[in-house]
């Protein structure tokens, strides 16, 4: 699938074929997409633990549901528990020097081993590594982790899978996954084949570009070009907006199939 169409097709899927497992190679592709994501100081803040739902004891499965995530967690055959690893700053000095060695950080931009050893590490990164509990450090780590999660989600869509991020109860799942204490729980990425159509009722309503993006300064909208918008429609990045005319009927059918309230 072309990249723009992958972006256009992604939805939060909330009905999965609970009986159909996901091929392990597709999960590997998702994880690889996450591993290759952009990350500050080449630190892999995102850590994740893949769990097959059927390997989670029933009691634990019930305990990790939040009021709104219960059904999603039950339907998705694969759960990827994601965390921000606050220890990822450690080792950043060596990683940065490696980026210098491989030609990613160059003299053209002022980078050298000496700069990393004598300025970047002691003045910036070491304090961050030592003050990992500061809100700004956690926000930076969570931001990078989010970028990686997003790449995994798009890779899943490209593989014909459905994905949805949900909240989870950390203590409950930790009996199974045994995540280190300094990992901050983010989301569980639920993965499976959609039981609803891939359109899932249409592209979700979003505010117009001009409302959320600015040019030059806050308050001056970034004006979209209708010609470019048409190009994105042709590339299936911008698709029919929800609700598609048959969505209510689809939800009724899904409710009946899974024995859910209407």
């Amino acid at each position, binding site marked *: 699938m072309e990249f723009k169409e992958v972006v256009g097709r992604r939805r939060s899927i909330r009905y999965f074929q609970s009986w159909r497992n996901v091929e392990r190679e597709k999960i590997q592709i998702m994880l690889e997409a996450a591993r290759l994501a952009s990350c500050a100081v080449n630190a892999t803040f995102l850590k994740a633990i893949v769990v097959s739902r059927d390997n989670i004891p029933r009691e634990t499965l019930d305990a990790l549901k939040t009021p709104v995530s219960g059904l999603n967690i039950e*339907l998705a055959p694969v759960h990827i528990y994601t965390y921000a690893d606050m220890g990822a700053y450690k080792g950043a000095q060596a990683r940065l020097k490696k980026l210098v060695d491989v030609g990613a950080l160059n003299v053209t931009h002022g980078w050298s081993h000496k700069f990393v050893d004598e300025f970047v590490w002691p003045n910036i990164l070491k304090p961050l590594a030592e003050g990992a509990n500061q809100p700004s450090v956690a926000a930076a780590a969570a931001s990078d982790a989010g970028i990686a999660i997003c790449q995994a989600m798009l890779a899943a869509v490209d593989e014909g899978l459905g994905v949805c991020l949900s909240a989870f109860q950390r203590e409950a799942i930790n009996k199974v996954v045994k995540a280190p204490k300094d990992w901050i729980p983010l989301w569980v990425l639920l993965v499976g084949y959609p039981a609803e159509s891939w359109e899932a009722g249409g592209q979700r309503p979003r505010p117009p570009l001009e409302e959320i993006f600015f040019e030059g300064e806050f308050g001056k909208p970034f004006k979209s070009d209708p010609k470019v918008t048409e190009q994105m429609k042709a590339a299936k990045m911008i698709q029919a907006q929800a609700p598609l005319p048959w969505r209510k009927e689809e*939800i*009724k059918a899904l409710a009946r199939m899974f024995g*859910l*309230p209407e």
Partner: protein
Amino acid sequence: MASINKPLEEYDSVKTWYRGLREQSGVEPNEDESRLELLREFCATLELDPDEIVAACLLRKEGKATKISIKGRRSMAERIADFQAGGGAEGRERAKRGNTIRSFLIHNGILLQSGVQI
């Protein structure tokens, strides 16, 4: 103990339910009379009228925003599960007993999930 002293359709919570069924779910509530019958049976079991059932899931304090009561909601979910298990129904009919009441509460703003009942 409250008594049901008017047609169920005249309770505000039932009007809200019917409106939600029509507008959000695309279901015409009058096409299936068993909905109201099940609600009536549930009301009798709890000895509450429909509005009181919704109120039992809420926490109202003067001067504060109304919240969903964690205890009230949990207790109601258990009562619905018991109601579903009773009545001798099996399979889809059994799920329908519980889901009808869940639907009534969901459309009245009380988040409940039934779990898969295939």
